[in-house]
């Protein structure tokens, strides 16, 4: 590929290009951010803490997941492990962008990594395939997303604080559960996921009853991950059923 010879850089022009491409997704980002603001207030988090979380974490799914575990005393291990597990996909996403990132000086890798999310990562991968070598693309789209995510969170918080809504009456307490149902539906890649997820769900349900509070997520997640891995290994030794994507 000749394009891989083009030098990698980080410029303002690239940031503008990335931000422009991001515009189409902003409406849904605002709405999810509002939903998070509302859910966080519903879970008992203060308004300032909700904004701090959106600003410092900037990863929707894990923020929703963390809400349940933001209790006193802080269940540190379940909290951090759950956040890690929800965000573990970032490791793979970063690895995919390595040919791009990896040729930058170390300091210049820090900012693009901080603003990498599912949406702008997907855009960046497409842009790289088209020959884009300016990592500003990821930074510009990421910063625009971050500002939007923060503003939407603030809007959600303001909504809850201004209007005294009965959260349960409007099913706001279910927002994060339903959000994950949406996410899972789009994540599902096939039958092998069903096996892993069935194991995860069943294990979590058992753990909910027999283990101390908050450990069900971790046990379910690990059981599902291991089940998926075992299934994956077994399939690798059966070449005739070679049907995985890509």
């Amino acid at each position, binding site marked *: 590929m000749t394009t891989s010879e083009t030098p990698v850089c980080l410029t303002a022009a690239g940031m503008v290009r990335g931000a422009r491409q991001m515009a189409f997704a902003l409406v849904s980002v605002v709405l999810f951010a509002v939903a998070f603001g509302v859910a966080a207030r519903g879970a008992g988090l203060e308004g300032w803490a909700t904004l701090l979380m959106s600003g410092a974490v900037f990863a929707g799914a894990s923020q929703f997941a963390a809400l349940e575990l933001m209790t006193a005393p802080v269940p540190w291990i379940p909290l951090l492990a759950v956040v890690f597990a929800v965000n573990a996909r970032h490791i793979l996403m970063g690895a995919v962008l390595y040919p791009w990132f990896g040729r930058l000086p170390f300091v210049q*890798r820090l900012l693009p990594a901080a603003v990498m999310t599912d949406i702008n990562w997907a855009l960046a991968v497409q842009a790289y395939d088209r020959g884009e070598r300016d990592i500003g693309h990821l930074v510009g789209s990421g910063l625009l997303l971050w500002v939007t995510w923060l503003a939407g969170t603030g809007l959600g918080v303001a909504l809850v604080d201004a209007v005294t809504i009965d959260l349960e009456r409007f099913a*706001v307490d279910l927002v994060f559960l339903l959000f994950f149902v949406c996410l899972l539906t789009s994540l599902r890649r096939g039958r092998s996921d069903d096996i892993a997820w069935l194991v995860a769900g069943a294990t979590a349900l058992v753990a909910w009853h027999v283990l101390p509070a908050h450990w069900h997520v971790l046990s379910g997640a690990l059981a599902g991950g291991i089940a*998926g891995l075992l299934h994956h*290994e077994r399939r690798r030794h059966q070449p005739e059923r070679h049907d995985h994507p890509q």
Partner: protein
Amino acid sequence: MSPLQTILAILAIGLVTYATRIGGILIMARIPVSPRIEAFLRYLSGSVLVALVVPPVIHTGPAAWLGVAVTLAAMLRTRHALLSLVLGMAAAAGYRALA
């Protein structure tokens, strides 16, 4: 939660999240991610969401079951996350209003 506990917890979550974001790049600089690790992480990210959702949905009761069913059906039909979310919430709220 005290304000200090809250701040510490949020900063810790932020650090863990940042570690996952920079982690892929740091790891790739040293070792290639093996297919086994990749498969495990892939199933892990879905499983954690399932484990998170299943017990509370089961225990919240019919309003949650209906909401999940409607969201799932809408999602499979339209693939539009936001629309499906709103429909599911409406169904659950409707159930609560009538029940």
